C-alpha cells in the first residue's frame, strides 16, 4: 500500500545507456574528430603556457592586473600569488590547469555567444533553451564526467568537454539578456534610419550587450575553473589531480598547497575579468 507500485518502473537509466551506446557506435567518428580538434587546441595552448618563461608570465599578469584594476598593488599582489604557486613546485601543473580553462572558455564563447544571440532573436528558441540551461546548471557536475568519459576516454579531452558543458550556460544567458536589454527606443531609431536587421545586430545590439557579455565571460571562466578540479577525476593532469591524490593519500599539507594554488588562480582570473567587464559598463554609462 505504501510502496510505490512496481509496474510503474521507468527504466530511464537503461534508455540513456542504450542511447549512449548507439551514439558511440554510430557517431564515433564525429566525436573522434571533435576530440582531436579539442586536443590540438588544448595542446597548443598548453605548450605556449609552458614555453613562456615563468618570469614573463608573472610580469605579464602583474601588468595586466595593474592596467585592468587601475591599482598598482593589485599587480604586485597577483604577481606574488604566482610566485607562491611556483615556490610550492606547482608551476607546470598550474599552467596545465590554466590551459584546460583557456581551451574550455574559448570553445564555450565560440558556441555560447552565437547561441545567446539566436536566443535573443527568437522567443521560441529561448523557451526551449531556458529549461535546458537550467538543467545543465543544476545537474551535479560529476554527471557530465560519465558521458565525457565514454565519448572521449580518459584524459584531458573529456575534461575539456565536461568543463564546456558545465561552464557554457552563463555566457549564453548573459548574451541573451544583454541583447534583450537594449532599449527599444534605440532599436527603433536604428530602424528609422534604414538599418537592416544585420546592421542593427552588429552596430547596436552587440556593442550595447558587451558589458553583459563580459559578465557572462567572467562567470563562465569561474565555472570552468571549478569544473577543472572535478574533471581531474577522469585523468586531466593539473592542480585538481594533486588535490585528488592528497585526498587518497590523506596528505593534508599537500592538499592544502594545491588547494591554495587553485584559490590563487581563481582570485587572479576573477578579479581581472571582472574589472574588464566593469570597465566596459562604466565607459558606456558615462
Amino acid at each position: 500500500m505504501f510502496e510505490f507500485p512496481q509496474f510503474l518502473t521507468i527504466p530511464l537509466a537503461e534508455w540513456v545507456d542504450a542511447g549512449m551506446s548507439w551514439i558511440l557506435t554510430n557517431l564515433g567518428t564525429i566525436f573522434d574528430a571533435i576530440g582531436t580538434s579539442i586536443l590540438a587546441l588544448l595542446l597548443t595552448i598548453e605548450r605556449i603556457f609552458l614555453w613562456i618563461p615563468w618570469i614573463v608570465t608573472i610580469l605579464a599578469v602583474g601588468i595586466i592586473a595593474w592596467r585592468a584594476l587601475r591599482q598598482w598593488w593589485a599587480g604586485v599582489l597577483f604577481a606574488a600569488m604566482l610566485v607562491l604557486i611556483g615556490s610550492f613546485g606547482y608551476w607546470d601543473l598550474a599552467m596545465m590547469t590554466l590551459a584546460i580553462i583557456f581551451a574550455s572558455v574559448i570553445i564555450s564563447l565560440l558556441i555560447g555567444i552565437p547561441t545567446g544571440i539566436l536566443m535573443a532573436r527568437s522567443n521560441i528558441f529561448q523557451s526551449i533553451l531556458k529549461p535546458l540551461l537550467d538543467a545543465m546548471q543544476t545537474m551535479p557536475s560529476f554527471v557530465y564526467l560519465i558521458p565525457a568519459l565514454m565519448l572521449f576516454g580518459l584524459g584531458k579531452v573529456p575534461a575539456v568537454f565536461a568543463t564546456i558543458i558545465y561552464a557554457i550556460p552563463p555566457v549564453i544567458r548573459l548574451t541573451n539578456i544583454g541583447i534583450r536589454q537594449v532599449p527599444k527606443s534605440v532599436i527603433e531609431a536604428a530602424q528609422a534610419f534604414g538599418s537592416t536587421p544585420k546592421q542593427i545586430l552588429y552596430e547596436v545590439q552587440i556593442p550595447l550587450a558587451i558589458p553583459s557579455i563580459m559578465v557572462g565571460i567572467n562567470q563562465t571562466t569561474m565555472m570552468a575553473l571549478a569544473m577543472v578540479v572535478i574533471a581531474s577525476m577522469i585523468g586531466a593532469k593539473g592542480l585538481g589531480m594533486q588535490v585528488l591524490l592528497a585526498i587518497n593519500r590523506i596528505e593534508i599539507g599537500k592538499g592544502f598547497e594545491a588547494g591554495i594554488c587553485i584559490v590563487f588562480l581563481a582570485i587572479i582570473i576573477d578579479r581581472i575579468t571582472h574589472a574588464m567587464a566593469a570597465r566596459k559598463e562604466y565607459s558606456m554609462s558615462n
Partner: protein
Amino acid sequence: MENTALTKGSSQRSQMCIQVEDLWKIFGENVERCFSPEMRASSKATILEKTGCVVAIKEISFEVQKGEFFVIMGLSGSGKSTLIRCILRLIKTTAGRILINGDDICSYNDQQLTHLRRNTTAMVFQQFGLFPHRNVLDNVAYGLKVQGVAEEERYIKAREVIDKVGLKGWENYLPSTLSGGMQQRVGIARALAIEPEILLLDEPFSGLDPLIRRQMQDELIGLQEEVQKTILFVTHDLDEALKLGSRIAIMRDGEIIQVGTPEEVITTPGNAYVREFVQDASPAKVVTAKNIMEQPKVLLYEWQGPKAAMHTFRTTMTNSIFLVSHTGILLGLITLERLVKLIRNRGNSLKEALEPDLPTCTADTVIEELFPLAVSTMHPIPVVDEAGRFMGEIYNSSIMISMIQEKETGETEESDKEESHV
C-alpha cells in the same frame, strides 16, 4: 462640380509630399470585424467592447504639402505617436494608404522601405534614441554609415551639421554626458545629416524643461527657414503646436477631428472638444497683424511739399500720417506737431519732419509681439512687407478690441456649457 474637384486634386498632387488616405491601425485578432459600416460609425470604446480590438488610429486622412510644417496634436493615447510611426512603417498599418511623393509605401518590400528610410525620411524621437556607445560625431554620422558613405566623407558632413545645431566641440563626448537639450540637438543633427526630404519629429521637446524647450522651438523655426524640409511634428502641447505649425491636425481617440491653420483652430474650433482644448490658448499668440490692420484713410507721398501735407492734415482731422515713397516703401511717420515746426523753419522736404524711432511690424507678427510696440508709441503701428512696402496700419484700439472680442466669445461659450450642465 465633382469633376472640378478632381482636376483640382490632381493638379495639387504634384505639390503633395505625404498623403494619408483612410488609414487604420488596429491591435487585436480578426480585425476585419472592425470595418463593418456599423463599427465604422462607432467609437473606439464601443469597438473595443464589441470586438476586443484596440483601435489605435481610425479613418485618418490628411495631406502634407512640400515644405509644410504640419503638426499633429493630441493628448496621450490619441494615437499620434502610432500615426507618425505608421508613416515610416515602424508599425505595420492595418488598412489604408500612405503615399509619399505619390508612392504607396504600404506596398513596399523590405528593400524599398530601407531605401525610403535611408534617403527620404529621418526621425527625431521623444526619448532621443541616441546610441549610448557612440560619441556625438558617430551618432550624427549613423544615418550616413548605414547608407554606406565612406568614413571621411560622413564625418565631414556630420561635423557640418553638428556645427549647425550648435554642438561644435562636443563631437567626442558620449550622449550620456550631455544635457537633455543637447542630446536632442544630437537627435536633430542625426536626422538632418542624411539631408532627408521629410523630417518626422515625435514629441522631440516634451522631455525638456520649459526654458530649453522654448529655445529649441525657436531654433527649429530658424532651421526650417534655412533647410526648408517637409516637417511632420507630433506634440501634446497646444502652445507648441500653435507656435510651430503652419497647419495643425488635432487628434482624439485615434481620429483627426480638425485640420487647420493655428488661427483657424483657435478662432473657429471644429467642435466642443477642440473648443475646450483651445479655450485657454491666448489669441494673442496666433492672431496676426494682417487680421487687424486697417487701410489708412490717407497717406503722404515723398514728392509732396509741406504746404500740401498741411492741407491733407486739415481735411482729414488727424494728427499723424505715414509717408511713403513712389514705390510704396514706408519712409516714416509725419506728425502734425513736427509738420508745423517744419513749416515755421521754412523747411521744404517732408523727410525732415519724420518721427524718430518708428516701430514697424510685418503681416505675420502675432498680437503678443505687438503689445510692447503699442506701449512704446502713441501713434498707429505701420505694417510693412519684406521689401519695406507699406501695407496697412494698426491702431492700439484695434489690438485691444481683437483681444476683447475673443474673450467675449470664450465667455459666452463657457456660460452655455454651464447651462447645459444644469
